[in-house]
């Protein structure tokens, strides 16, 4: 009987949830044998039960791709119902639980990229998804709990892009508050690269010269306090090079020379203090000293 076969897949998967062939077999039993002989309500129950099974398994095996994948499959196969008037009811009920599930998973491991990917998938595909502003608030909570959570900074960059593109947030004012958030984090732990990578995202391609000047001055202040801060030096080189690359015509000859000298001095110091990446600094130094075209 297929129900025996079905139950044995449950037992096998509880022992080893990575057996992708067993998941396939289980799905085949469901779609080919069980579902054609079932009422939609029974199909919905079976899928809801599989969602609970995978939640149990994920708590033990949070990084197993095929378990996450089976959840997606379950959600995508929830039938219309419970009534003709409410065809989305079952879907909504199941999808709504997913944000709770994924938040539990991210509470256990805030860097689990499977969970973050799943979260983005849920937000993009559920009906009545919470708006991006709610997601922005979620990343704020995650970042405030731990500035080192680059996964949350990454998510924040994606959400902000959406909010800006959709005109739901004014890019300029919102960027300004991001700079304040990130500066706060920099002063808390200047060695935390998550924060500096996010800062580099805020700066972007460096088209805004006054922004570059302002941020250079602010980082310089931090460097004066923390003269060995690698990330202060690294970022200063990055932004000063951006000034040279993008805004050369607006700089005086003296200013241009000064920027070059600053970069050279910073790179020389980086090559001495960040020995692991010594050759990178020397390569950039050499490139800067090459006569520009």
């Amino acid at each position: 009987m297929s129900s025996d076969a079905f139950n044995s897949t449950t037992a096998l998967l509880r022992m080893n949830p990575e057996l992708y062939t067993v998941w396939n077999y289980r799905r085949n039993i469901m779609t080919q044998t069980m579902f054609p002989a079932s009422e939609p309500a029974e199909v919905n129950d079976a899928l809801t039960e599989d969602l609970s099974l995978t939640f149990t398994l994920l708590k033990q095996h949070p990084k197993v791709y095929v378990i996450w994948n089976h959840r997606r499959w379950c959600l995508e196969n929830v039938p219309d119902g419970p009534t003709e008037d409410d065809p989305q009811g079952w879907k909504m009920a199941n999808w709504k639980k997913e944000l709770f599930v994924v938040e539990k998973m991210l509470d256990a491991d805030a860097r689990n990229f499977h969970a973050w990917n799943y979260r983005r998938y849920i937000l993009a595909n559920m009906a009545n998804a919470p708006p991006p502003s709610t997601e922005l608030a979620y990343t704020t909570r995650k970042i405030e709990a731990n500035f080192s959570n680059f996964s949350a900074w990454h998510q924040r960059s994606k959400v902000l892009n959406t909010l800006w593109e959709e005109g739901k947030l004014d890019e300029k004012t919102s960027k300004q508050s991001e700079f304040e958030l990130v500066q706060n984090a920099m002063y808390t732990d200047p060695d935390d690269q998550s924060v500096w990578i996010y800062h580099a995202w805020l700066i972007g391609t460096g088209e805004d010269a006054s922004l570059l000047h302002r941020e250079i001055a602010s980082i310089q202040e931090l460097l004066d306090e923390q003269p060995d801060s690698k990330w202060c030096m690294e970022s200063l080189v990055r932004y000063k090079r951006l000034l040279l690359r993008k805004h050369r015509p607006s700089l005086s000859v003296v200013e241009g020379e000064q920027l070059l000298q600053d970069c050279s001095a910073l790179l020389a110091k980086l090559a001495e203090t960040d020995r692991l990446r010594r050759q990178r600094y020397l390569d950039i130094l050499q490139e800067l000293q090459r006569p520009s075209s």
Partner: protein
Amino acid sequence: MSSSSSSSSSTELSIPLHVKYIQSLGENKDDLIYHMTSHLRLNAIYWGLTALCVMNRQDALDREEMIAFVMSCWDEEAGGFGAHSGHDAHIHATLSAIQILILQDASDKIDVPRVVNCEPSKHIFHSRRTLPEMLTEGLPLLVILSLQQPSGVFAGDAFGEIDTRFSYIAVQSLSLLGQLDKLNVDKTVSYVLKCRNFDGGFGAVVGAESHAAMVFVCVALLAILDKLDEIDQETLAWWLAERQLPNGGLNGRPQKLEDVCYSFWVLSAMSILGKLTWIDADKLIQFILSAQDPENGGIADRPGDQPDVFHTLFGVAGLSLLGYPGLETIDPAYCLPESVTKRLGLRKNWKALPKRT
């Protein structure tokens, strides 16, 4: 405090021990671990065999037995290889099968056994076709091409988990079979480029955080398809160089722990970009060597942990790219010995560090 000129400590790569470790893996088939890892069996054979090739000990595993096992994993119904006899075809197992057969130079000599018996009857494969016949009949090819989604990304199997890993696997498989001309290159590349982030790295799907393993698959895919000029190489190489931690090991993302397997994911991308000099090779070599099991052989994810064949391969592959003496050079785009990709005319323009003596 070590500088790049400091001499290495006394630790060396224990090649004989690692060879013994790899040989021992398939021996105890009653072992629970053996069954618990059956979903990765074909991949594990590829990992073990490639590690042996890098250590110049390809002869250490029985060739005929291995080829017979690979053929027993053929899933006739789906037209691809499963991870083990009786397992469903999957794109990852299919690549491993192709890689093993190519490593064994089996693509023009092998008589496929008349009947390779597998458990469910649908898997019985009976014919006397040779492998090249099978390949030119396009069997694995068919399943690979059918897995491409409208977005350009590939799924792993008919149930549709999508990921840039599967795109890479598809591209490498087609390349090894000499069938890249059947691929929609623009569509494939355009999905990969959508997975690129502002930090220069790549994620598994659109919107995902950069991760060194995905950087490897995306960069290697672009290298195989000659599309590296599409990306910001300087930013990516910077992000990759920042994976090295003070203990010499590499992590896969910012603020995460080091792990030996990233020695390959990160280094392969760096060697494709020609930037291997941007990290401290001495310290990384010491880190990888410190993760060896000095008693039973094998390399673990980090010192003191249980070794496994996956980290053993990516440890020696990392050492190979760093020019560690006595190792065959690994091709970072294919994770196959350079001699093999040269033989197939597939070697791209990447750079390993010069061989040390």
